[in-house]
């Protein structure tokens, strides 16, 4: 690949929490790297000048939790379509969960994802390896070899690690490699058969509910196991006020716990299920207004470290079913910025600076990934977005193959205009 033409991102508001930068200025990208950020820059000969006035120029977003479905369900998403969707959403790097078919639980499977991502171009894709062989929750998968092949973390996401012993030994073993262990917190006997949050809406609709306690029991277990082992536990898709309180408890004691929240849990409540809307069905489910408020505050005060999409495409006719039988999950890569911006920035709960911190700087730092900074010499993974632009979501125009979005037809504020990966244009909004 020849080096892309230099790009001068001119006159935007540069927001880079990694160097406490928030000022109007120019960013120069050359040879796939950021060469300067800030101040007025005279572009070199032949550079493409992009007018970024009125827009935010930030380090590219990093999603530590998405499902790209390849191998196994290429009809629903491929690594290529997922990487393009990521770029369209301003993500320059995403971490792919291992619940593929076959499961990403060995070095060859990890290598396959790396190769497919290289062929795809667009956003970087980092594999996450399975904790257990076949995600069966029994024998530990070959973590060292998977990391050697390019995995950046381990997780059995989609399934909880039921055995506390396995979780313990995984946290211990992961210390040797310095990677996070990402857990899907769900006590399976409490959650069994559940289709949505347990509460008045599930009672009215006659759907089996999943109480928040099903998550919280595993959250505190994992925090205690992190205390026991000194390992780094990363808690996926937190959805309840109780979880926030437990994470705060753990962090106050210096336990090595980090946590993520998804855009939908910051924006929608169980009421979005309405009359059995399967595009509002995911696991963990949408909760109550009190939970949403607690999660928003947790993003503000740092109890929740990062925002991750849990992007989960499904074929349209899999969602066109009776609610209890429809699969869990919604697509999120192409709406994440807009949803977070609408729910948290437009409502003045957090600043754009905080948003960039939790969608770019901290995810990169926690998962030890390149990116998340515009420092000179850093890879030129850059996102340009307009935090004030309102647009109407149209799922039929997504780059992802999934159409399962609860926001389709809704107006959101905040739009990605340009995404550079390694200095090359991975996405540019037309017009």
């Amino acid at each position, binding site marked *: 690949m020849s080096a892309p033409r230099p790009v001068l991102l001119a006159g935007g508001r540069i927001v880079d929490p990694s160097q406490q930068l928030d000022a109007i200025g120019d960013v120069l990208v050359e040879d796939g790297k950021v060469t300067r950020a800030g101040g007025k820059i005279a572009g070199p000969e032949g550079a493409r000048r992009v007018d970024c006035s009125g827009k935010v120029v930030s380090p590219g977003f990093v999603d530590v939790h998405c499902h790209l479905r390849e191998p196994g369900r290429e009809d629903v998403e491929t690594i290529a379509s997922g990487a393009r969707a990521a770029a369209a959403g301003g993500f320059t790097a995403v971490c792919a969960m291992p619940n593929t078919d076959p499961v990403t639980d060995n070095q060859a499977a990890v290598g396959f994802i790396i190769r497919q991502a290289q062929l795809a171009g667009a956003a970087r894709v980092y594999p996450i390896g399975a904790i257990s062989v076949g995600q069966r929750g029994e024998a530990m998968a070959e973590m060292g070899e998977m990391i050697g092949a390019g995995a950046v973390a381990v997780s059995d996401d989609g399934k909880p690690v039921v055995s506390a012993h396995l979780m313990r030994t995984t946290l211990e073993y992961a210390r040797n490699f310095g990677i996070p262990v990402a857990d899907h917190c769900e006590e399976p006997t409490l959650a069994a058969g559940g289709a949505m949050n*347990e*509460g*008045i809406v*599930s*009672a*009215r*609709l*006659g*759907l*089996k*509910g999943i*109480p928040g306690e099903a998550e919280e029991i595993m959250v505190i277990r994992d925090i205690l196991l992190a205390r026991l082992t000194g390992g780094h536990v990363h808690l996926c898709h937190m959805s309840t006020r109780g979880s926030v309180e437990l994470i705060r408890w753990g962090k106050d004691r210096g336990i090595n716990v980090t946590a993520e929240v998804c855009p939908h849990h910051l924006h929608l409540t169980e009421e979005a299920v309405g*009359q*059995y809307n399967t595009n509002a069905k995911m696991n963990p489910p949408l909760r109550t207004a009190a939970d949403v408020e607690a999660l928003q505050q947790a993003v503000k005060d740092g109890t929740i470290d990062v925002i991750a999409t849990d992007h989960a495409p499904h074929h349209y*006719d899999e969602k*066109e*079913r*009776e*609610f*209890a*039988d429809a699969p869990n999950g919604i697509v999120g890569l192409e709406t994440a910025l807009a949803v977070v911006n609408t729910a948290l920035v437009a409502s003045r709960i957090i600043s754009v600076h905080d948003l960039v911190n939790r969608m770019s700087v901290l995810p990169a730092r926690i998962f030890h990934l390149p990116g998340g900074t515009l420092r000179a010499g850093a890879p030129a993974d850059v996102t340009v977005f307009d935090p004030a632009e309102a647009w109407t979501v149209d799922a039929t125009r997504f780059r992802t193959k999934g159409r399962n979005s609860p926001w389709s037809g809704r107006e959101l504020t905040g739009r990605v205009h340009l995404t550079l990966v390694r200095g090359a244009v991975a996405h540019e909004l037309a017009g």
Partner: protein
Amino acid sequence: MTTPLGKDLVGLEHLSRAQIQLLLDTAEPFKEISERAIKKVPTLRGKTIVNLFFEASTRTRVSFEFAEKRLSADTVNVAASGSSVSKGETLVDTARNLEAMRIDMVVIRHGSSGAARFLGERIESNVINAGDGTHEHPTQGLLDMLTLRDNLRRLDGIRVCICGDVLHSRVARSNIWGLRTMGAEVAVCGPRSLLPSAIGEMGVTVFDRIEQAIEWADALNILRLQLERMSAGYIPSLREYNRVFGVTLERLDRAPRELLILHPGPMNRGVEIDSNVADGPHSVILDQVTNGVAVRMAVLYLLAGGRADLAEAAQRAGDDR
């Protein structure tokens, strides 16, 4: 076609007091048709109705079928077993195929909550919910209310306690919404493990002891206890259930007033209800079954576009034959 009820009847939760009143009042003249030697009026002649039953049902299916036939509709029964459904066809494909044969109405019984609404949103035919999962069973709620009104002469202000497995009961939900809309006071009584955890937000009183319910109520609607609840760990045993929550004659004898006993059937005699209560003077259980046909005739009639004030005329048309 828009009717005073809308296109479909999927539940009682979103019906107004006027709509429920209309349904109950429309059922009144239809009662008499079933008492005739020739139990048939031509009201729905030429209408095609599919009874689409994904769950086993005798009472509800037969009741709907009688209602349809007594209104002269052409009916087809489709049971999930023995149809393409058992070959993996989706609900929406099944429905679209039926509709492609040009039908007018679908009566659906399905194990998934929301299935009736799902169907109604996807086909043009009128859809009547004959029970969807643990969501609603609106015609059961209506026939319960008609039976209560027959016996207590009003619904406004009466006290009805729904006893048993409210958590898994579509009958309970339809009763709660319908009765509350009509101004009745509603309570529930049963093992807390078989009540929705959000029961406190459903506008009902909760009694922990059946004795309290009996002291309070004008009528008890006793739900069937699904026998698998024991193996699923919700209750210790059927024997204990009867001892603690069973409606027995001994308990009824201590009631401060005459109680009406309703049960949607099929009964587990000796579990939630003792035989001498089911067969005793308080029981209106068979009246419920009789009223079920009239209520379903009213639902079919109104959704087919019939006007309430013409229901009596429809009845008289039968006389002219």
